[in-house]
Structures are given as structure tokens and as C-alpha cells.
């Protein structure tokens, strides 16, 4: 398929090396890639596979300690080692890029109109006011509403999806030959994700540029790419048409990636199972504005009258996009933030419990966070981190007993007990999440609230963490509230699903019912965006 098309970027034996205090690290180990005119090539791999660094190397965008070797010829012109002046004639004009981080990839100090105009003025000449007409046209093209007004907006005045549209407008400004999209939708909500990918697709059909889609998300690949290159640890393990890769994968790694989509189901707990944690009419308000000379104070209702009943052994999945109030709800249920409503833990009414009244209950109510990098103190050893709760809840334990408990907990999360003498930075994301889970279960809790515990992890690692959480639930009879924006993970983990939007429950029900026959429009939109992409 498409083999008759002309190869416009030929990458041969490309190597990217980083100089680090521990010696040289080869991020890309001599890869070959061909990009043909007008095609969509997906470069797929997990974090650390070198998929982004390959493109950064070709575009001369490596960090200061990185260097590139080998060859990357764009229509016969060698890009590797090209002097900056000549390279600057290619990048931004013939080859353009959009990045993963729409929130930070635009300069916060200039209007978006000026930023889109910059490469136009640079590569085509003319003045900024002459470029304005073209900028308006581009904004229209990428679906920014009311471009005449938005052209003078600053990035912080726009949403993530809109900023990514602005980046796309910038990428299209000079009619490029190749558009490199580096994880263009990873930082966006699923519904926005689908819109951005559709936009890229239709623009490609219209203008016929080649698109290099760098992603870890196989769902996106299947839907949008014509060819796929699978990368692992700096090497291309397999290349082929999308159909071949998905239906007849050759490399073991590709097979593993395809199988790593979360699978399995959870059965509902028995009807008679006791209720562990209940929140009735849970509402959380945040004050906005205010201050001595500030604007008029207002109230933002983050969670609005939500009811939750968590039974023993149950997993309730709470799903929603960013800003839906799902994390806030989790914190309110644990009485960690001021909130109104009625709360019951087991037989105890905890509605009016303050900090000190809650403290003895805390060991039974634990919380695991999304960010395995930010939620572990970098200055404590793993042993200190996971035993910290024991000082509060079981102060009578001797040092040796605490150590014994730490060993048990680490074994339970399938980490080497020797890990307790090391520091968090020595561990990978998945291992750190295991440490965070060990910190929660060492206290032998009844209820654990898991706030996006797998969202920062690669798919293959995600699957392992999900398996671990399931096993722990069985062994200890835990009840989970599982908060996530990722429907496939929710589907695999929970027996009951609550869909939230703008602080309210849109729909709830047993997992099968929600996934097979969603009643509400919003749930259907979410499903479509997540599973057809």
C-alpha cells in the first residue's frame, strides 16, 4: 500500500546519544525509517523507546547534552549536521512540528496571532500586519471560533484543545511537506482528543502533507495511521502497514503491546455485602476572587450533590474529564477537604468529624495519587516512606517490627524488600506506583481511593499495576473507589461506574450496563471518543 509514493524523508542509521554524568546513553541506536509523501506514519513506543528523540534529533532540537549521528535526507538534502542557518530554512517551512504540551508550547507573553505569524514572516518575508490575513484564514481552518477576536488572545485565555489547534495552525502556516505530531493529544481529554485527531485527518486530506504521528496510544494508531513503525529501547522492532501490524504482528514486543490493553472484568459484590463508605448529597464549594481589594467574591461548586455507596469488596469507577470534580469528590469522601453532605464510614456517622476525630479512622481510609513522581518525598528512603503511617497509627511498634511490616508490604506489591533502603528516584514510574500502594496497604486499610493511579504509566506497566490492585483487593477484601479518565482501565477494574461532568453525576450503573448500553448522550460521546479512536 502506498509503496509507489515518493520517499521524502529517508532516515538511515540514525543515532541519538546523550552525555550524562553516568556516561553516554544511546537513546536511538541506528534506526532506518522512510516517510513517503502524503502518508501517515505512526511511530509507536512506550516511554524511553526513543520515538520522540528520533524526531528531535532530525530537527536539531535535542537538549544541550544530546547529539545526533547518521543520516536523515529530506528530498535529497542531508539534515544531520546541517548548519543552523540552512536548517532554519527547512524547519518551520517544509517540516513542522506540534508537541505534546499544548499548555506550555506557546509563548505566554505573546498573542497567538503574533506567534502564528512569526514563521510566516520568517520564511515568506513581509510584515506582521501583512501576515494577519493569512493568520485569520488559518485560525478559521483549524476551527477556532470567532477568529477575528481570538487572534489577539493570549495562550492563557484558551483551553488546551484550542491551544493545540493554534499549534496546528502554526504548523500549517507555510504549507509543509511533513508535519510531525509528537503525542499531540496525550495531554487532552478524550472528547477533545478525538476532535483534534479528526481535524488533523481532514487537514491532511485537504493539503496532502505527510504526517508523522508519534504516540504510545495504539487506539489512535489503528484509526489514523497508514503505516506503523514500532520502537523499543532505541530500535525499530517492526515496520508495516497498520493492518499488518494489528492483525499479523511479527515481533514479540508488538504482540505484547497489543495484548497490554487492559482486560478482564470484576464481579459485583454480594447483595448482602455491608456498606463501607457512604456519602449522601456531597457538595464541595471553592471560593473564587475575593481578597481585600479584589474582585467580587464568588463560589464555584466543584461537586454538586453526589451520592455514593461503596460496599465491602466493591470497586466503584468514577470517570470524567478534567474539571468534572472526580478527584475533589474522592477527597471529600475521605473528609480531607471542607464539604457538605452526610458521611458514614461503616456504622459511624463521620459527617461532623474534624481533623482529630478523623485521625484514628485514617488508617482504614487510604489514598493513592496519580503522580508517582511527585507524591513520594525524594529525601526519604522507600522504607521511611512506607512506614511513616505506622508511627501515627501503631506507635507501639518496635523498629524491628516496623521493618518486618515494610518487608511484607513490599513483597505484597512484588518489589524486592531490599528496595526499602533506596530512594524513590532510583525507581521507574511503575515501581514508584507500587511503592505508593505499599504505603497505603501497610496500614491494612478497608477503603482505598485510587486517584488516576495508572494514568502516568505506560500501557504494559499499567496492566501490571491493575493486576496487582486486583490481587490485593481479593486478598484483603478491600473496597476501592477508582478515579480515572481512562475508560478502558475503568472497565477492567470496576463493577460499578459513575460518570461525572461539571460536578454532577451524569449516569451511573453496573459496569456492563454502562459500557454496553449508555443512556446519556455525554456517556455515549465519551465511549465513542475512547473506543473508536
Amino acid at each position: 500500500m502506498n509503496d509507489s509514493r515518493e520517499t521524502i524523508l529517508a532516515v538511515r542509521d540514525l543515532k541519538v546519544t546523550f552525555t550524562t554524568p553516568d556516561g553516554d546513553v544511546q537513546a536511538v541506536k541506528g534506526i532506518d525509517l522512510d516517510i513517503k509523501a502524503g502518508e501517515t506514519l505512526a511511530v509507536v513506543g512506550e516511554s524511553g523507546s526513543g520515538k520522540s528523540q528520533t524526531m528531535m534529533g532530525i530537527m536539531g532540537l535535542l537538549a544541550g547534552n544530546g547529539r545526533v549521528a547518521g543520516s536523515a535526507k529530506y528530498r535529497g538534502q542531508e539534515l544531520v549536521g546541517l548548519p543552523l542557518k540552512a536548517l532554519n530554512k527547512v524547519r518551520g517551512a517544509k517540516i513542522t512540528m506540534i508537541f505534546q504540551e499544548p499548555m506550555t508550547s506557546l509563548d505566554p507573553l505573546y498573542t497567538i496571532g503574533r506567534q502564528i505569524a512569526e514563521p510566516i514572516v520568517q520564511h515568506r518575508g513581509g510584515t506582521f500586519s501583512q501576515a494577519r490575513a493569512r493568520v485569520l484564514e488559518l485560525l478559521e481552518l483549524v476551527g477556532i471560533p470567532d477568529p477575528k477576536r481570538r487572534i489577539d488572545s493570549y495562550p492563557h485565555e484558551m483551553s488546551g484543545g484550542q491551544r493545540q489547534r493554534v499549534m496546528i495552525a502554526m504548523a500549517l502556516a507555510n504549507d509543509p511537506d511533513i508535519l510531525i505530531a509528537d503525542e499531540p493529544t496525550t495531554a487532552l481529554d478524550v472528547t477533545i482528543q478525538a476532535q483534534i485527531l479528526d481535524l488533523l485527518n481532514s487537514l491532511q486530506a485537504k493539503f496532502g502533507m505527510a504526517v508523522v504521528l508519534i504516540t504510545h496510544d495504539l487506539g489512535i494508531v489503528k484509526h489514523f495511521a497508514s503505516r506503523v513503525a514500532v520502537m523499543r529501547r532505541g530500535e525499530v522492532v517492526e515496520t508495516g502497514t497498520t493492518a499488518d501490524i494489528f492483525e499479523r504482528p511479527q515481533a514479540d514486543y508488538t504482540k505484547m503491546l497489543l495484548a497490554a490493553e487492559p482486560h478482564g472484568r470484576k464481579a459485583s459484590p454480594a447483595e448482602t455485602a455491608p456498606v463501607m463508605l457512604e456519602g449522601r448529597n456531597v457538595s464541595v464549594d471553592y471560593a473564587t476572587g475575593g481578597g481585600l481589594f479584589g474582585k467580587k467574591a464568588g463560589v464555584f461548586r466543584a461537586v454538586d450533590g453526589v451520592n455514593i455507596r461503596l460496599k465491602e469488596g466493591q470497586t466503584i469507577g468514577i470517570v470524567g474529564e478534567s474539571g468534572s470534580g472526580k478527584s475533589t469528590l474522592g477527597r471529600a469522601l475521605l473528609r480531607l477537604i471542607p464539604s457538605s453532605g452526610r458521611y458514614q464510614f461503616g456504622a459511624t456517622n463521620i459527617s461532623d468529624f474534624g481533623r482529630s476525630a478523623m485521625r484514628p479512622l485514617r488508617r482504614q481510609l487510604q489514598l493513592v495519587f496519580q503522580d508517582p513522581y511527585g507524591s513520594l518525598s525524594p529525601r526519604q528512603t522507600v522504607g521511611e516512606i512506607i512506614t511513616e503511617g505506622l508511627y501515627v497509627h501503631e506507635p507501639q511498634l518496635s523498629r524491628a517490627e516496623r521493618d518486618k511490616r515494610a518487608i511484607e508490604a513490599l513483597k505484597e506489591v512484588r518489589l524486592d524488600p531490599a528496595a526499602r533502603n533506596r530512594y524513590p528516584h532510583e525507581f521507574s514510574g511503575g515501581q514508584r506506583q507500587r511503592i505508593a500502594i505499599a504505603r497505603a496497604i501497610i496500614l491494612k486499610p478497608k477503603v482505598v481511593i485510587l486517584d488516576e493511579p495508572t494514568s502516568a504509566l505506560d500501557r504494559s506497566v499499567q496492566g501490571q499495576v491493575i493486576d496487582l490492585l486486583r490481587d490485593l483487593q481479593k486478598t484483603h477484601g478491600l473496597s476501592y473507589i477508582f478515579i480515572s479518565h481512562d475508560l478502558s482501565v475503568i472497565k477492567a477494574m470496576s463493577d460499578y461506574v459513575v460518570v461525572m461532568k461539571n460536578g454532577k453525576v451524569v449516569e451511573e450503573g453496573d459496569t456492563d450496563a454502562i459500557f454496553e448500553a449508555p443512556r446519556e448522550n455525554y456517556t455515549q460521546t465519551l465511549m465513542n471518543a475512547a473506543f473508536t479512536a
Partner: protein
Amino acid sequence: MISFVLRRLASAVPTLFIVVTISFFLMRFAPGGPFNLERPLPPQTMANLMATYHLDQPLWSQYVSYIGNAVRGDFGPSYVYKDNTVAELIGKGLPYSMELGFYALLLALFGGVLAGTIAALRQNSALDFLIMSVSTVGVTVPNFVVGPVLTLVFAITLSWLPAGSWGDGSLRFLILPMIALALPQLAVFARLTRGSMIEALHTDHIRTARAYGLPARTVVITHAMRAAMLPVVSYLAPAAAALLTGSAVVETIFTIPGVGRYFVLGAINRDYTLVMGTVVLIAIFVIVFNLLVDILYGLLDPRVRHD
């Protein structure tokens, strides 16, 4: 914008009031008084002096009348420079201090930003190391050392420049005190600029600018520099207030007739009114420059713009 300025000016009133109140009582609690000389005055003379200046009245009534007069712009007579009011002394000295301070501020700001930018662009090179070492010296060596050394080298040994005094106010006279005054601030500006510039050069939007083929000069000046100036601008307010209100040390070493000396001399002599006058002066400068800097900051950064 106008309402922002008005709000800030309104909030300056309680600030000034608190500053004046605290310094008034602190000053009075310090032992001694303006007329406690080495050779004690006869009791009768002392009593007369105290009565003339109302120092024999209870403290609270002195405080009330000071505040009452200050509100009307009357900061009273100096107790030590008896022929002058505080307002006259400050009015005479301030133009000298401000002119010298203004040049020193320009030197510190532009020199510091330039040095810091060069150091950041050549991070970890010999040049970076040199600039940072010199700026460490600039911060750590006090200007009562820098001043005399400059005089020794450039005025006495080389005879290139005059050793002191305002002279005819021409630049020749101002160069050495200006350098002595600017050096510590220049070093701070250089360090601030280097740090924020290095940070700015590593942001995602700088990567975007490079990915779109913008030349290095545009990337650095248009995109990195503007972001890097934000912390520098924040420091501008205290630096400007400090430099423009003069320095006791530099003005003494170079015999400049500015106001910087009055703060120290006033404090040593227990010249209550003179100290209070300089306190009010410095407080006003700090408030005004903070306001100016906040406005400037809003112009640089649309995210904090005051509408």
C-alpha cells in the same frame, strides 16, 4: 488600570502610617537624645531646649502633633542642623542622590542583564565562570572597601579621575561613586538574569520557536529574554529605591552632598525629625517603585495584566 493605581495608592496610606508609627517609637526608645552631647549641657539650657522643641511633653502628644504636622507636609526642624528644616535638608540633598543613583541604576541594570545573558548563553563555559566569580565578589565585598580601592587606583595612582566631591557635576566626578554604588546591584542583576535566562531557554515554547526556524537572535531576544526579565523587573523596585535614596557609605567616601548620609548621621545624633524624614522618604520611594514595577510587570506579562 486607573482603578488599580488608585487602589494601590490608597493602600499606601496605611502602610506609610504604620512605618512612621513604628519608627517614631523605636527611635524614642533608643537611649539618649538629640541634646545629650559629650560635654553635658547645663540643666537650665537643656530644659529650655527641650521646651523649645516640645520634647518635655508626653510621648503620645508629641506623636500626635508629629503626625498632624507631617500630614500637612511639615516634618519639623532638624535638631542638629538647627538652621534647617528636615524638608530643606532633604530637598537640597535629594537631587544629588537621585542623579547619582539614577546613573548607578542604569549601569547596574544594563550591565547586570548583559553579563547575566552572556553567562546564560555560554552556560558552564570559562566566560560564564568568570562572570559569576566577579559577581560573587560584587555581592560579597562591601562598598566601603570597593570605594577606597577605586579611589586609590583610578584617582591617586593613575590620576584619571577625581577622588571625590560633586565638582561641577560632570560625569568625571560621578564615575567612581557610580561604580561603587552600582557594583553590588549589578552583581545581583547578573545572577538573577543568568538564572532566569537559563530557565527560559529550557522552556517548551523556546523549543517551539526553534522548531519553526526562527533565527537564534530572535529566539533569545524576543522569546527567552522577555520571559527572563520578569524576575529581574521584580527586583528592580527595591534596587531603584535603594540606589535613588543614596548611600551613606558611598556619599561619605566620595563627599557627595546627598541625603544618604542623613539617615546614618541622624540616627547617631538622635536627630529624631531627620531620621523620621528619611524614613518617610525611603518608604515613599519603595511604595512608588513597587507600583511602577507592578505596572511594568503587567505590560510584560499578559497573565497578570491589571484591567
